[in-house]
């Protein structure tokens, strides 16, 4: 078996197991109230982490590059209540423009 197939099979099985362990073991039953309150906070915490890492992260380094321009433009568009599709288009266009001029 090639290295690629070994990785595909092991990562696939591991990922499916990690995604399913909660839903299969706990599924259908409500969580305890205290845990539900923690879970309600998981959304903002993880989303904010994803925003930060996808804006500034490059592997194990933090970098300032053209993505910052795009995310800043997106933040302004969101503040002006633009629809999400437009927000994404603005972010991509601003980043592409910044990259084209060498940022």
């Amino acid at each position, binding site marked *: 078996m090639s290295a690629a197939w070994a990785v595909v099979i092991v990562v696939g099985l*591991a990922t499916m197991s990690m995604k399913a362990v909660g839903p299969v073991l706990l599924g259908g039953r409500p969580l305890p109230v205290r845990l539900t309150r923690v879970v309600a*906070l998981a959304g903002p915490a993880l989303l904010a982490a994803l925003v930060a890492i996808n804006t500034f992260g490059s592997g194990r380094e933090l970098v300032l590059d053209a993505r910052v321009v795009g995310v800043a433009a*997106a*933040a302004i568009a969101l503040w002006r209540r633009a629809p999400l599709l437009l927000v994404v288009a603005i972010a*991509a266009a601003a980043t592409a423009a910044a990259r084209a001029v060498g940022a």
Partner: protein
Amino acid sequence: MDRTFRDGLRAVAPFAVAVAAFGVSFGVLARAAGMGSVAPVVMSITTFGGSAQFAAAAILGEGGGVAAAVAAAVLLNSRYVPIGVTVAPWLPGGVVSRFLRAHLVVDETWALAAEGDGRYDPGVLLAAGLTLLPAWVGGTLAGVLLGDVLPDPETLGLDAAFPALFLGLLLPQVRGKRVAAVAGAAIALVLTPVTPVGVPIVAAAAATLLGLLGLREDAR
């Protein structure tokens, strides 16, 4: 058609284009990394987790070996354990149904299905997952087949699409939960240079515990 399923289809549309474009770039990268043309497509179906797949392909391409590629991808996807726990109470059906619906959980579908108070809408999750999985797999196939004739998504600025989308999903949820959001972002950024890729996102989940402590103050 279920009403929330239709809502989900509408909400997921902005993501489908970006996800397909990154599926293309994963296909191109995986092919260039020597993964062949079938294995990357199978990986997109079975793993369905963009960042982990990119990391695995990049490590294989650099000659990093199976163990390093697996370790990085599994670490990156380990956030799906806590994420799976958050959606678990809301997934209907028997074990097989819950297993298949759990497979459709990725960052984007999970965030779209969130109702902001700890509840998750299974109709939105299903619609978003059934849109993004074919977009991701179809993009991968196109990347593997068409390779270098396609423009680089970074030239088009599409790498900024994901933080912009996550920001758009974060803002409606952040009210009264700023402590958790700021702590999550801060923990992720501080840990990025000092831990393996993937750890910062999981550690940010721990920010929910800090957020719980700050909740009373923040709600005032």
